[in-house]
């Protein structure tokens, strides 16, 4: 838990700088939003360990549920929370996360080189298939409902 807190603080700090550069939000204005996001994340992780209901991907689910509840209209003070967390731009947050994804690429690259060309083609099609078909289905229902 202490390690998680430390890592999230580091990522949070880097995000505030990125948020400042790209979205011109000064870290002084955005730091409270980041602290809230980190607390939600840590409490969510803690919840996922103590709640006995068995679910798949418990961390993702309990962190999502907690964040969702605290910012949904039923929670008193949800506007204040949203007001602070809105200062953190989603895209600014994903840049450091994907940076670490990049920095870990090297450890798998040799395994990747051993894969055949066929599995690479199939992988591309797997990702194309899931994205394309979901978009087609969504488009059909959205048009049918008259949303778009």
């Amino acid at each position: 838990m202490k390690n998680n807190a430390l890592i999230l603080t580091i990522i949070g700090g880097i995000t505030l700088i990125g948020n400042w550069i790209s979205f011109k939000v000064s870290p002084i204005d955005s730091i409270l939003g980041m602290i809230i996001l980190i607390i939600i994340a840590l409490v969510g992780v803690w919840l996922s360990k103590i709640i006995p209901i068995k679910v798949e991907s418990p961390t993702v689910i309990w962190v999502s549920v907690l964040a969702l509840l605290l910012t949904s209209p039923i929670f008193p003070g949800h506007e204040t929370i949203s007001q602070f967390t809105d200062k953190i731009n989603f895209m600014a947050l994903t840049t450091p996360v994907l940076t670490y994804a990049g920095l870990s690429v090297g450890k798998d690259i040799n395994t990747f080189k051993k894969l055949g060309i066929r599995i690479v083609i199939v992988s591309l099609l797997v990702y194309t298939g899931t994205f394309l078909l979901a978009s087609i289905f969504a488009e059909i229902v959205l048009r049918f409902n008259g949303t778009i």
Partner: protein
Amino acid sequence: MNKYKLTNVKIHIIALCLVIIAEFIGAKKLNVGFGVIALFPMLYALVLGGIMSLPSLRILKEKEMTKSANVLGVSFILIVSKLGTMLGPSIVKVFQEGWALLFQEIGHFIGTIIIALPIAVLLGMKRETIGATYSIDRENNLAIIYEKFGPESEESKGAIGVYIFGTLFGAIYLGLLASILGGTRFFSPLALAMGAGVGSGSTMAAAAGALIVLFPDFKDDILVFSGAANLATTILGTFICAFISLPLAERFYNWLEPRIGRRKKKNLDNQGGASYEK
């Protein structure tokens, strides 16, 4: 205990520098012959980080790459937390599009099988096809395949191949694909946003990021609906993959393989090998 010490100063400083560079370059639209490719900071950071980690450059040690992967595993919770706070205020809107969200999930789960499985069989892949194409093969999907067929099976080898591809190139590929599909103007940004929720956080982020560059007016809706779809895919994922997708992929393969599969001596040898092992 050292294994859990993630405070490796070097990787964090490198990460900080890469983020600063990436954010200063900023989002760009690149016109290519067939449309527009969206480029944005997270892609630069991903690619630059990937180049720095190449073993031949000797900048990072194996241990530091493993630490980066650990940091990634933890930092991802922050994305989930942020997406949750975006879903909360829009929860009514999300439920209004409940049918679209529900139906597009079917697309997420059968899309891999319908598009990739026949081509895999045509390319001459054997039972690897089942593992490779029944899902996008993230960690939880690998667990399902291992449990059913064993980690050394052909099915698992197929799944691991797609897993490695996804780990390395999933985000960047989906970012490009989102640009291309967005450029066709056939799909609404909302539909593509839902499609982006493939059930892997970083992959979803890259696809949603590309959509935001292409459709800046829809920024909030794109994030809300890709986040909602991603959460739905994650919640339903393991259950549907284990009880529906995997049996479906296996049946489809068994039916299709004798009809369009390649017959080569090499494949016969492989089959001989397999039965010998039994």
